[in-house]
């Protein structure tokens, strides 16, 4: 017992010693008793089962929440969902406490958000990556729900342009004219990225070999890395990951073997400098930030809100110095073309 206590104390001391590093801890908020008069705008964020540490869109959404809290003087809170059945009660929790805006992160919550939003017509809701869906599975827009959509294929297309240009011109370590991608699991939001990526490569460099794989996991890094090593052994030298935590393993494979990787969702240039050449960014943080601001300023718009290249909701991330100017120029041009509608990236995979 003494040993057990000693260990616990050791562990807690570690927490305490490192506590200073904590960047921003969530602010304790007022309880439900606060009345509507003169209260600050309250924003509640409900993550999906990935949790705040998913190195992906939940984390990005939380970043947007914290930025909005700082910049607009809001009161915000977050609940991490541990199970899919928690979505309804977690959304309800914020709605019952008269939050002004409740944000559901992830398409998994479409049905849950529909259920809760119908019950609380005076509370505004936003769904990242989705629209309210009734029990039959059909989209049923509600006057108090904003559907925040992203065109992942556009982000995939932009980084695909950079990859294709580098592969075609054999830039740096990209010498095999082969590029790859790896998804977590084959579901639409993942495959949209990859479809856009492949579309760009087929368009710009038809001779380039394209491979695609799945780690079948959003967490396991070793599985992601093995897929990466397998791809590299087949000549891949630019690897695009769309697999959350598992994708970090895919990047690790690229780093270990000295080839290039492309990050996803958030700017992952810092994950492995020199390896990650750019990132296909889906600005979930911006969506959360903008929507919070819209509620505060009274410009909240229910129904579909598209975050795309057009409104900088989609972008490619910072570029590594190895990326040649012509590649950047090509990507910039593609961005402009997408904005203008001249290019409409595909949403179906070319290479499965």
């Amino acid at each position: 017992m003494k040993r057990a206590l000693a260990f616990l104390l050791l562990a807690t001391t570690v927490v305490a010693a490192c506590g200073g590093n904590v960047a921003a801890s969530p602010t304790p908020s007022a309880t439900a008793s606060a009345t509507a008069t003169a209260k600050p705008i309250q924003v509640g964020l409900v993550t999906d089962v990935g949790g705040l540490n998913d190195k992906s869109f939940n984390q990005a959404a939380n970043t947007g929440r914290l930025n909005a809290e700082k910049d607009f003087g809001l009161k915000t809170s977050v609940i991490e969902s541990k199970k899919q059945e928690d979505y309804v009660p977690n959304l309800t929790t914020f709605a019952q406490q008269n939050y002004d805006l409740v944000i559901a992160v992830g398409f998994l919550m479409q049905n849950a958000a529909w259920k809760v939003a119908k019950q609380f017509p005076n509370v505004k809701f936003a769904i990242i990556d989705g629209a309210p869906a009734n029990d039959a599975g059909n989209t049923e827009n509600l006057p108090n729900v904003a559907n925040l959509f992203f065109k992942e294929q556009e982000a995939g297309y932009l980084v695909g342009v950079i990859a294709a240009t580098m592969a075609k011109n054999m830039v740096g370590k990209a010498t095999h004219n082969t590029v790859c991608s790896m998804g977590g699991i084959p579901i639409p939001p993942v495959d949209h990225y990859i479809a856009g990526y492949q579309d760009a490569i087929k368009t710009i460099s038809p001779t380039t070999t394209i491979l695609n794989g799945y780690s079948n996991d959003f967490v396991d890094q070793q599985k992601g890395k093995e897929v990466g090593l397998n791809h590299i052994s087949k000549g891949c030298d630019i690897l695009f990951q769309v697999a959350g935590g598992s994708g970090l393993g895919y990047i690790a494979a690229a780093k270990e073997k000295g080839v290039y990787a492309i990050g996803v969702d958030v700017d992952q240039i810092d994950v492995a400098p020199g390896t990650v050449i750019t990132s296909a960014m889906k600005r979930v943080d911006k969506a959360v930030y903008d929507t919070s601001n819209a509620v505060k300023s009274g410009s909240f718009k229910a129904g579909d809100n598209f975050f795309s290249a057009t409104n900088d909701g989609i972008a490619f991330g910072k570029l590594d110095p190895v990326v040649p100017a012509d590649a950047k120029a090509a990507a910039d041009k593609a961005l402009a073309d997408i904005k203008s509608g001249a290019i409409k990236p595909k949403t179906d995979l070319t290479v499965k």
Partner: protein
Amino acid sequence: MTIDQLIGAGVLAATLRLATPILLAALGGVVSERAGVVNIALEGCMLVGAFFGVVAADQSHSVVVALVAAMAVGAGLAAIHAVAAIHLRSDQIVSGMALNILALGLTSYLDYQFYGTTGTPSDLAGVPDIEIAPLAAVPFVGDVIAHQNAIVWAGLALVVLIQVFLFRTVPGLRLRAVGEHPRAAETVGIAVRQTRYWAVIASGMLAALGGAYLSLSVAHSFTDGMTGGRGFIGLAAMIFGRWTPVGALVASLIFGYGTALSFSLQGASIGDVRVPVQLLSTLPYVLTILAVAGFVGRSRPPAADGIPYETEGHA
């Protein structure tokens, strides 16, 4: 489906990499259960090893310090289990499950506290590969083993070491006696509880090394729950391997091979039918069940495994 996809050097090299963390957990299980303590907290020990290895590597920029720290924390978690299982004679499964939950919660919590907004540093000191230059040029063999990570070799070395320790040394003899018939061991003056403490602590260190392999050799970062149940699979490998280090190695290799196949066969077809990638992923698990049902069958644990030892005067 080609020969290369089935038994190519790449597949075999991947087999070794994928088997290593499971092997280390299984070795931990072997040591602990041979001494008579069921340690289902291997998963938790791996997880804290993975996390605190990263923290220590980040703070010290030294791989050695990182590995020592990982194993120390693994030993610490195992020591809690040892106190509960040996000293307090609590239910060993309960204690192990509680520690697994604790490890998952604690590492996720601390990960978010430490690295939530920034992510694990990219310049983390990693465990290096061991390049065997003379072999590198040898076809096939070189591709399989010339560039494996130091911990892969450590795992293989530990198989030999622990096999020799258990079956060819005096302390190993005593440890097995304690796991088979603790009272007999006590009557010849062997300190049963002390032996069990060391065994459990060693098992925590081995599992933590397996966790550190994942974070410091494979991923060079930590993600929540990154061990993904490998501690439990290690437990299965231990039983599959009949509580021997060499058996655990065989079991881990079979499992690792199944996993490697599930990647190398992606995109392969049987006739005209493309095998769904998700079903390929069941390969290692199906393979393990088939192997155990087909070739291993009944296996007998150490006779006193999981049974708290009661004696007077030492409590």
